[in-house]
């Protein structure tokens, strides 16, 4: 198996198409072979679908695992005894939980890569950090759900953490004021889920500029827009509001799956698009899984070089998105850049278009 350290040294958003393809496809194909060899269930799927592993593989020809499969089966590519962490996620739709099994190496690689990706936003230095949530460590039963995992994971990239929600789910104004008093003269991080940022910093809050000075804040948010659907707010307006009300100018959205933690997709500087890195790739497919061209909307398929202890390297999501281009985004980041338009909806009409 390849070692992720081989590609971790350079900037993950610096690879141009041809170079990226060479490296990514080689590593990915190795990873796929590894899962085929080590995960009995994955092998069954590949064999039964008749998608034989070829030498000169195109990404589109590998067998995709539909995201809900992690809710149905415990999928592992290592011995169960080697698992050091299980992460559960309900997603937004299901009753059943996704179960992700991590061994030591996989877990370590996630943090390494996440750190490398976030360097593009935060720089190399660890900065003071506001987290728009409750301190998950205060939660008596520390179940490792995806939310907790994300908060704890991202928190490692900051210091002097300030969790601004108290147990009653209100913003602790004094805490926030004290933090800003100490740190607002230099760069600091604001992290939270998109829905939480909207709820606590924008919608019903008395947190306003200039008594709260966020000018030097770098805001990173993700986790989906679903909760904001009823407010009909998109990424552009979200940014405008943060800028207008709190004077935060650096706002970055990220997109990622708990099944592919680490190799997240981040927004470039003021471009509004999400970007692939050397650790990730994506394709857009139509309802017959035909690969679509740029600017065509369809199902998002996500590739990651990180999952080693479970076969999560090639996932068909239930999200709709479109690729806008590759390597030529105005923000300067190389790789594919794309938009996510949210979760697929069950159409109201079932079955056939007519009856005899």
């Amino acid at each position, binding site marked *: 198996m390849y070692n992720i350290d081989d590609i971790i040294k350079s900037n993950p958003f610096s690879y141009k198409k041809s170079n990226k393809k060479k490296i990514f496809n080689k590593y990915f194909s190795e990873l796929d072979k590894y899962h085929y060899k080590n995960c009995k269930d994955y092998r069954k*799927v590949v064999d*039964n679908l008749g998608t034989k592993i070829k030498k000169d593989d195109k990404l589109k020809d590998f067998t995709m695992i*539909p995201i809900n499969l992690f809710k149905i089966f415990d999928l592992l590519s290592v011995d169960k005894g080697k698992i050091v962490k299980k992460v559960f996620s309900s997603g937004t739709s299901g009753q059943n939980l996704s179960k992700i099994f991590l061994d030591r190496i996989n877990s370590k690689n996630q943090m390494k890569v996440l750190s490398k990706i976030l360097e593009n936003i935060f720089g190399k230095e660890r900065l003071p950090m506001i987290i728009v949530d409750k301190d998950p460590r205060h939660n008596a039963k520390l179940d490792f759900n995806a939310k907790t995992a994300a908060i704890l994971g991202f928190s490692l990239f900051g210091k002097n953490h300030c969790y601004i929600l108290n147990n009653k789910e209100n913003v602790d104004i004094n805490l926030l004021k004290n933090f800003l008093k100490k740190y607002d003269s230099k760069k600091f991080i604001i992290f939270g889920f998109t829905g939480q940022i909207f709820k606590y910093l924008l919608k019903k809050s008395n947190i306003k500029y200039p008594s709260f000075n966020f000018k030097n804040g770098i805001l990173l948010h993700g986790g989906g827009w679903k909760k904001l659907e009823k407010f009909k707010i998109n990424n552009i307006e979200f940014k405008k509001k943060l800028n207008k009300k709190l004077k935060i100018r650096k706002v970055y959205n990220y997109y990622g799956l708990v099944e592919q933690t680490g190799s997240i997709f981040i927004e470039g500087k003021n471009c509004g698009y999400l970007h692939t890195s050397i650790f990730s790739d994506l394709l857009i497919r139509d309802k017959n*899984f035909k690969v679509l061209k740029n600017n065509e909307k369809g*199902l998002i398929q996500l590739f990651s070089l990180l999952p080693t202890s479970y076969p999560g390297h090639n996932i068909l999501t239930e999200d709709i998105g479109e690729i806008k281009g590759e390597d030529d985004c105005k923000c300067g980041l190389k790789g594919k850049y794309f938009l996510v338009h949210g979760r697929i909806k069950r*159409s*109201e009409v*079932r079955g056939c278009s007519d009856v005899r």
Partner: protein
Amino acid sequence: MLDKKKILYKITENKNFSIKIFEPYNNKSVQFIKDFSNELKKKNIKKYPDLIYLMFWCTNKKILEAKKNFSENYIRLGRGLIFHICPSNVPTNFVYSFFFGLLSGNSNIVKIPSKSFTEKDIILNTINDVLKKKKYLSLKNSNFFIEYNQNIETTKTISSICDARVIWGGDNTINTVRETWIPERSIELTFSDRYSFSVINLNKLDRNNLDEIKKLTKNFFYDSYMMNQSACNSPHFIFWIGRNERLKKSFWFELNKIVNKKFILDEKIAVDKYTHLIQNTINQKNFNKLKMFKNNIYIIDPNKNLKNIENMRGKSGTFFQKNIINLDELKKYITKKCQTITYYGLEKNEIKSFILKNNLFGVDRVVPIGQGLEIGSIWDGYDIIKSLSRIIHVE
């Protein structure tokens, strides 16, 4: 002694609600169903194939005039109050159950699906509109629709005063409901989870008669795709009699054309279907070969040593297939779970003698391909109208 009136008031909040009985197929109930159909026609139902089917069903002479089949030696009356427990995941099932209760001359309390469906709302609005008519006052005060979420107390209460209980649902639902008491004289009909498949006799299909192949695939399409293959009577498996790979090929080819044209495949259905397929590839020991017509049709050839097929289910157009030599070979696959066999190219007498000869425990319906989804008062081995009415022997 239970105070029926009190309980009825508690449930329906209608002081005038009372249990009335009528003769099966009484004019009022037949007229009500016809009026319902007319009213439904006025609603915007173009988008809903199951509502269009329902609309036509309500004018079907076979359904409304089945009285002819009753013996003239006896008189019949409804049993009293029927408690219908309908599945939460099928939008239109409850209205058929209600109509059978009505046609058999009963008062009804119908537990409707708790999930939200536009079809459900349209049906309920239509029923309310018809019940508003003065001539149906007696029906308005003897029929009630209730929606609740797995509250066993409510089930207990209604069960304690019903004369018959009709349960549609999975094995769990049926077992849970059965733990609640019904009065000694009350009866119960259960419609549990079932399995259906098709048999096609290729010897009777002329490969030069393309029209016939087209007709067959069209009929098969309606049986399997109309309810997204999720109805009890949608086929999951095709048994082919008479080895002819070329004909099989053209069957799938023609089916694919129809699916392409008529089936509304969206991303959600595609992902669910693919997920279900992948789940099958992991779970099935019997998996041998797969053919995919894009996401329109998935066809799975199982291994030779196939034993039990009742868990080999498809979704939104996923089929298992196997060649057999003759009808008798089917015997081992017909378990108690088997409900409907749809067929092509077989004689009625041939089927009857096959069933009698083998003393089968399973299969309740054998109908030509294309009639798989038709709902009649003979269902799951019951004559529902006769079961929900009482014979009075007068000599």
